[in-house]
């Protein structure tokens, strides 16, 4: 289990123990974290699972694929250097304690 803190658009913080191998979107939606839509269920085609990764720790994540980068150009909220699609980030031990912030809007 990897403890991840999600900051909802309202500012509320929710800590979830994400199973290794699950992606950050799956754990968030199943637990009803507000603000992640994930219309395509993680197929990397909808850009509605946008999150901001704690900038300090961004470099610890495997880099985004070309598809993810292209989709990130079309996210609804502001795209920042630390923008990622949460369905493309898998939980593993090294992410323990990561803070991800969910933007105001996804669609």
């Amino acid at each position, binding site marked *: 289990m990897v403890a991840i803190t999600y900051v909802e658009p309202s500012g509320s913080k929710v800590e979830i123990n994400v*199973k290794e*191998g*699950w992606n950050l979107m*799956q754990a968030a*939606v*199943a*637990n*009803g974290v507000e603000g992640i839509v*994930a*219309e*395509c*269920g*993680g*197929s990397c*085609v909808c*850009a509605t699972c946008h999150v901001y990764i704690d900038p300090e720790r961004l470099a610890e994540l495997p880099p985004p694929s070309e*598809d993810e980068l*292209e*989709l990130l*150009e*079309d996210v609804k909220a502001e795209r920042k250097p630390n923008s990622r699609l949460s369905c493309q980030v898998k939980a593993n031990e090294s992410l323990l304690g990561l803070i991800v912030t969910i933007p105001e809007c996804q669609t």
Partner: protein
Amino acid sequence: MTGSDQHILVIGAGQAGLQAAETLRSNGFEGRISLYGDEPYAPYHRPPLSKAWLTEKIDERQLTIRDISALERKGILLRTGSVIEAIDPHARSARVSDGSLVHWSGLVLATGATPRRLPGSESSKAVHVLRSRRDATEIAERLQHCAREGRPIIIIGGGFIGLEVAASARKLGLDVTIVEAASRLLERVLSSDLSQWYADLHRSRGTKLLIGAQVSNIEPVGPDQAIVHFADGRSVQAGLVLTGIGVIPNDGLARKAGIECDNGIVVDDCCRTSVPNIVAAGDCTVRRLPDGAKIRLESVQNAVEQGRSAALALLGKEKPFTETPWFWSDQYGIKLQIAGLSHGADTWVRRGESSESGFSIFHFKQDRLIAVDSVNAVKDHMLARRVIGTSAAPTIEQVQDARFDLFTLRSKSA
């Protein structure tokens, strides 16, 4: 309807039903909300069932869209394993399989659709359709079994589900044959050249295609094999026969209750049915367009948008579903994305070489862009979703001009 004595019943705990329930809550509905589903699970994502999930054996719970406890916190009561057997619009009640009667002040029908089957295919372990988590689990097991025993598999129907399962099965190294009755794959959705491209793709990956082949029946053999008999007298034996030949909308409850149906529950663009206080959303519906034509869409986007419209309609707010329809399919790691509906197109233009490195086909009807099919071209697809039906849509000449940068149109559409 905002009083706390109000009760909205949502029948069908799939993508559309869940969206309707959550939209009701997030839009200020304070009464009770009940979500009844006949499957034993909380709402889950279906698209992965024919894609990565089949071969990667990921944890089933990773498919969950919303856990029961998350719904509870929102004040949505989820009842799994509960079939609604009948509805009565006059008494505003519904009969549940456990014999109880549920009263409602508003009703959302989100019952989805059921795969068509072929005669003789009901009782064999070797013959399957793919709709539910249970189906997918059984199919995943069969695929492993066939891989071990060296038995071939046959997929009847060259639609998205069949093609995706074929690609997944090839990944496991299985002997796969796709049988399509029409003259080409995906005939109803793709232009002929893109159909051809997909046929070539499948052949190049070692899948056999029988195009224009009519199946007469399927005959179970022993406990776990089946023979597919063709109209021309041929027959083939397999360890798994998957039929992916389309679905039948689940409109039975509505029809018996006197709600207008026509191969689906007929709804307007705000998801209202022919009966007040009863709305419907998702695969169970057929939408009447302003010009009287009817369309049926079977997609996640349609389920989500209609679920939202339906909930708002019950709250007396009009939120027509007007977004550009979109859909996707993954086969052999190649991503097909469709924006708009290409039916009725008179001109098409390709951007990019037709290779796996990415291209799109732009469909025009009377000089207007109506749809774009993109293969490994995510940016084209996202652009298409924004501009189709707007003044920012490119002209035929712009699409033909390889030097014209289509992405400059994005700012125009913003």
